[in-house]
């Protein structure tokens, strides 16, 4: 809501009225000032002048020759506009004048007639958009005044953002009322007084739908003359962000801004029949609104209709057919109270947010319609020369809405929420300043006027007390909670994240969606868990239409983004939820949404430098990353087994089993996926369920390092290709028993002289006892049982023991 301080001064006297201070006060009351705009004339040497004569130009048809005066010797000015005649008061840019935007005006000959300066339009003076004709002043303005000195042109406009709970502040009177409460001064509301004629109204009013229409007031004004509204009104409307149209239409906007009550003016003669009915629209009914759009109506729309058809969308926008035009003489003024949800629904459904709907959808004071209709009638009769009928039609469909609410307010409520100091005198003072009735000591009986629909409960009054007392006048106190901090799994998640960063992976955060084309890239089928997709009901774009069932498309997107910006080595991870089309185990009403950790890397990984050969990533890289994580996270009891899954390399991917339970997959991304993602080389990835990784674990136990010497030796085995190194290590390790300190594969070999399908594994073992030096008998025995255990899993010791 744009508030002109010049206009505001009609309703409240502010001393001192510094715009900055007013802005600050309004903000402290909860009305954010989005912008403070200073308006000032940016033209010079432009004066008001009376047009004495207007004659045709001897050598041109489209322009005329005028004689104008500021009171002294008349001068000749040539003018191309036709919207005025002799007697009009106009804006005359004298020779040497500067117009808005910097154009300089001189004395020049126009087709043989010397023109002394020019007569200006509103646009030329930067006062408005109107360039159709020149600016014509109201008759009361004398000639010879410097236009730059017009007080109404120097103004400050505050653009207020009013919260949805405060429809009462969406008007000049409402803003004045708020300031009056703060400054402890009075404010003024218009009290319409105007001549009335005794005649029966022509149009009867029927409200068919009391659920949508609480009240409907209509007033008729006869014999109006539609023309331009006066300069002062146009200036005020423009400062408030409204485009002047014609006096009758401008008056409806003026009253809306002044009182907050939207008004509609119908051309009474264009209404079919003798009555207006407020009803729901018929199925298939249509209405062309004032903006020229043909709207298809449904019974969820509420309309103001004549006997034949809908003529306005209730509280939203009028219809074109009954629009007030230049030829209108009989006007019906409508001031009504509409049901907020109904108006909200219509304005959303028709994507039509107007000044009227913005107010009605929040709730307009149902006591206002008669006042606003009278104010509009006063202005129409005064400015458009009409005669207002004395008889007013006021249909109250919902009496209950007109009754003020009373709240019994216990002082304890204030103290409990606001702290000490809110005793009866203070509370009564604050409430009275807010124009609420306050009676009694404790409880205080508070009567809430109908313009404050937001105040229904004691807590609403608590907020009002705090607001007027000043949110920043409360002392500061810092309460302490009982503690709790992070849970085990939150702490372990942090450890996991730090470990990944330590391994050179950067954390990425992606939007939680995926799109159909990304699903195609990975190529999973219906059976796959990743096919348990949940779609958005109201997606805005294809990119954000499906919830992600896996973190990998997002990570691949990150790799792709970086590659396209010339960064070929990408190592990223993400921690986040995926969403699966099945019920959550604990909260069955919402979908399953487990947390995952995913990572992906391309190119080479690890420290780099002069003469450092870095290994391109492959399966062994991701497995090494996992082993490092398992150490950092103290996760034992895991195992990797080969897996074939859509989107993964069929021979270079593994499922991770933790305590025998599958928790995810790691390995190389299928080369076809890599190609489709327009990447190259090997791409490694991992995606694991987070919960089992970060769940509370048994604590690791200290083992004292032995002071006795180790027995270190290598063993080379020949084995079938499909014997997992892990199986051989655990078989031989078990055979070595407690003596085994470490075992590490240091060579894997395939090819000649081994046969097809065979491989050789060389393992370095260290045996050591905690309490003695191992004897040659003991080591010999250990080696023999290790060789035997290897044989049992299919591996032959190469060479002699």
């Amino acid at each position, binding site marked *: 809501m744009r508030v002109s301080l010049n206009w505001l001064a009609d309703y409240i006297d502010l001393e001192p009225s510094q715009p900055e201070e007013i802005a600050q006060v309004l903000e402290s009351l909860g009305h954010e000032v989005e912008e403070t705009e200073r308006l000032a004339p940016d033209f010079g040497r432009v004066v008001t002048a009376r047009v004495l004569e207007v004659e045709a130009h001897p050598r041109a048809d489209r322009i005329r020759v005028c004689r104008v005066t500021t009171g002294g010797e008349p001068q000749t000015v040539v003018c191309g506009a036709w919207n005025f005649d002799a007697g009009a008061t106009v804006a005359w840019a004298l020779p040497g004048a500067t117009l808005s935007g910097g154009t300089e005006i001189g004395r020049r000959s126009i087709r043989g007639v010397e023109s002394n300066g020019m007569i200006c339009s509103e646009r030329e003076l930067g006062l408005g958009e109107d360039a159709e004709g020149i600016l014509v002043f109201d008759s009361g303005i004398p000639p010879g005044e410097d236009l730059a000195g017009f007080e109404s042109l120097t103004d400050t406009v505050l653009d207020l953002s009013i919260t949805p709970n405060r429809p009462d502040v969406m008007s000049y009177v409402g803003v004045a009322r708020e300031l009056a409460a703060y400054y402890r001064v009075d404010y003024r509301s218009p009290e319409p007084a105007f001549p009335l004629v005794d005649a029966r109204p022509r149009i009867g009013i029927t409200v068919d739908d009391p659920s949508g229409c609480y009240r409907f007031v209509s007033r008729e004004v006869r014999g109006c003359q539609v023309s331009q509204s006066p300069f002062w009104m146009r200036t005020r409307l423009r400062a408030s962000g409204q485009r002047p149209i014609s006096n009758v239409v401008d008056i409806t906007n003026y009253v809306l801004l002044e009182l907050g009550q939207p008004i509609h003016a119908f051309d009474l003669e264009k209404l079919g029949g003798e009555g207006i009915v407020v009803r729901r629209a018929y199925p298939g009914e249509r209405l062309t609104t004032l903006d020229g759009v043909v709207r298809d109506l449904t019974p969820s729309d509420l309309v103001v209709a004549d006997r034949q058809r809908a003529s306005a969308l209730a509280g939203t926008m009028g219809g074109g057919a009954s629009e007030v035009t230049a030829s209108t003489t009989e006007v019906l003024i409508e001031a009504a109270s509409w049901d907020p949800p109904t108006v909200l629904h219509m304005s959303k459904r028709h994507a039509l947010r107007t000044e009227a709907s913005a107010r009605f959808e929040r709730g307009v004071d149902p006591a206002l319609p008669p006042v606003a209709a009278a104010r509009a009638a006063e202005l129409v009769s005064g400015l458009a020369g009409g005669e207002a009928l004395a008889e007013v039609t006021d249909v109250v469909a919902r009496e209950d809405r007109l009754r003020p609410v009373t709240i019994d307010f216990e002082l304890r409520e204030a103290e409990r929420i606001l702290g000490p100091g809110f005793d009866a005198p203070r509370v009564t003072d604050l409430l009275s300043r807010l124009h609420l009735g306050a009676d009694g000591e404790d409880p205080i009986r508070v009567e809430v006027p109908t313009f404050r629909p937001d105040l229904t409960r004691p807590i609403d009054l608590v907020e009002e007390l705090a607001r007027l007392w000043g949110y*920043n006048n409360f002392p*500061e106190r810092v309460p302490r909670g009982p503690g709790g901090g992070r849970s085990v799994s*939150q702490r372990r998640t942090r450890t996991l994240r*730090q470990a990944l*960063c330590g391994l050179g992976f950067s*954390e990425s955060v992606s939007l939680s969606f995926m799109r159909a084309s990304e699903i195609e890239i990975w190529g999973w089928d219906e059976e796959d868990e990743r096919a348990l997709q949940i779609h958005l009901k109201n997606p*805005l774009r294809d990119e954000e239409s499906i919830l992600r069932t896996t973190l990998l498309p997002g990570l691949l997107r990150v790799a792709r983004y970086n590659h396209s910006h010339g960064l070929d080595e990408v190592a990223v991870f993400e921690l986040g939820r995926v969403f699966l089309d099945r019920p959550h185990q604990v909260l069955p009403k919402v979908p399953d949404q487990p947390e995952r950790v995913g990572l992906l890397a391309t190119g080479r990984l690890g420290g780099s430098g*002069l003469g450092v050969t870095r290994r391109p990533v492959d399966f062994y890289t991701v497995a090494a990353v996992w082993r490092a994580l398992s150490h950092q996270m103290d996760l034992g009891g895991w195992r990797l087994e080969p897996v074939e899954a859509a989107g993964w390399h069929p021979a270079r991917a593994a499922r991770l089993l933790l305590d025998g339970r599958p928790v995810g997959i790691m390995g190389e991304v299928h080369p076809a996926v890599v190609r489709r993602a327009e990447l190259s080389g090997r791409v490694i990835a991992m995606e694991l369920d987070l919960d089992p990784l970060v769940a509370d674990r048994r604590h690791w136990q200290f083992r004292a390092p032995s002071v006795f010497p180790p027995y270190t030796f290598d063993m080379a085995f020949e084995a079938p290709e499909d014997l997992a190194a892990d199986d051989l290590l655990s078989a031989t390790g078990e055979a070595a028993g407690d003596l085994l300190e470490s075992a590490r594969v240091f060579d894997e070999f395939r090819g000649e002289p081994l046969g097809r399908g065979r491989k050789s594994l060389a393992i370095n073992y260290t045996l050591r006892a905690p309490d003695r030096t191992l004897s040659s008998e003991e080591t010999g025995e250990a080696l023999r049982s290790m060789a035997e255990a290897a044989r049992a899993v299919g591996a032959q010791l190469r060479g002699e023991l």
Partner: protein
Amino acid sequence: MESLDALLEKAPTLVKGTSTLDELSEAEAELLGRRSVVAELQRGIGRLPPEERPAVGRAIQEARRTLGNLIETRRRRLETESERLMLASDRVDVSLAALEYQEGYTHLITSTIEEVCDIFIGLGYRVVGGPEAESGIYNFDALNTPPTHPSRLESDTLYLDWGDPADEILLRTHTSPMQARYMEKHDPPVYVVVPGKVFRADTPDATHSPVFHQIEGLAVDENLTFSDLRGTLAYFAREFFGSERRIRLLPNFFPFTEPSAEMHASCFSCEGGGQCRVCGGVGWIELLGCGMVDPNVFEWVGYDPSQVSGFAFGMGVERIAQVRHGVSPLRHFFDNDLRVLSQFR
């Protein structure tokens, strides 16, 4: 014996005159070797009368020790010198980054969340999480948001094609549903912070994203007042933005708090006025929404609003990170450009 004295006299000059370890070895051979005066005297000791032998023997031992010390001292000196020369030739360019470890970086959203949580943990809060795919019941109903409220429209909220339509399954629009979920399961006192993802029906642009992050705070106890809210937020502002910060609260409107406020912190980058990048010259930075928990929320979760009171606040993680570090436009949080990620600390 005269020869021994003469030897001891000339030995220091001889030893100190050596400049390499080889020369020193030659000198050592001359002084203590098989053909040296000392060796000869030693060999001749048997030919002396028995009563002279002990004295001569002692003199010879004395001379050996003296000469040996002399040579050892010189040897250490020469060795040190030779190592110094060798190391000097091994000089590096200390400015050359010949080796770099691969570093990984925590995302700014995460580190901001961790820092804010740490601040509140210091005040005795617990960190909790909650579902991102939520029901309208927790996202709206429990939070005093009526069915007709505009925020429930499809133009604002992303709904999921899932579950019972009556449950209005949606992507939570704020972290506030956890207020209701947590209070439902726990008795007061409640001091929690809830970081997490939230969703809105927005297409990505410079200032909007369909996904962003919030941190919710909730404190419910027996005697919490508006002053506790003010004090807690002022404490947070000082911890997060610097000890000089002041705050101001401006009245605002949220369905689930009353009184409701918007919290601003004094700008950390300017004194107000002028062309400040951070506050635009206003001197204050809008940081978060907050308020006293509405009694309807307490009633919904089964708390007695006449017995407990509390406050809640919700801050945008990207917002406060953006204010502090200037990351703009918003997409830099979600593009995951390594050149951006590597700036995060």
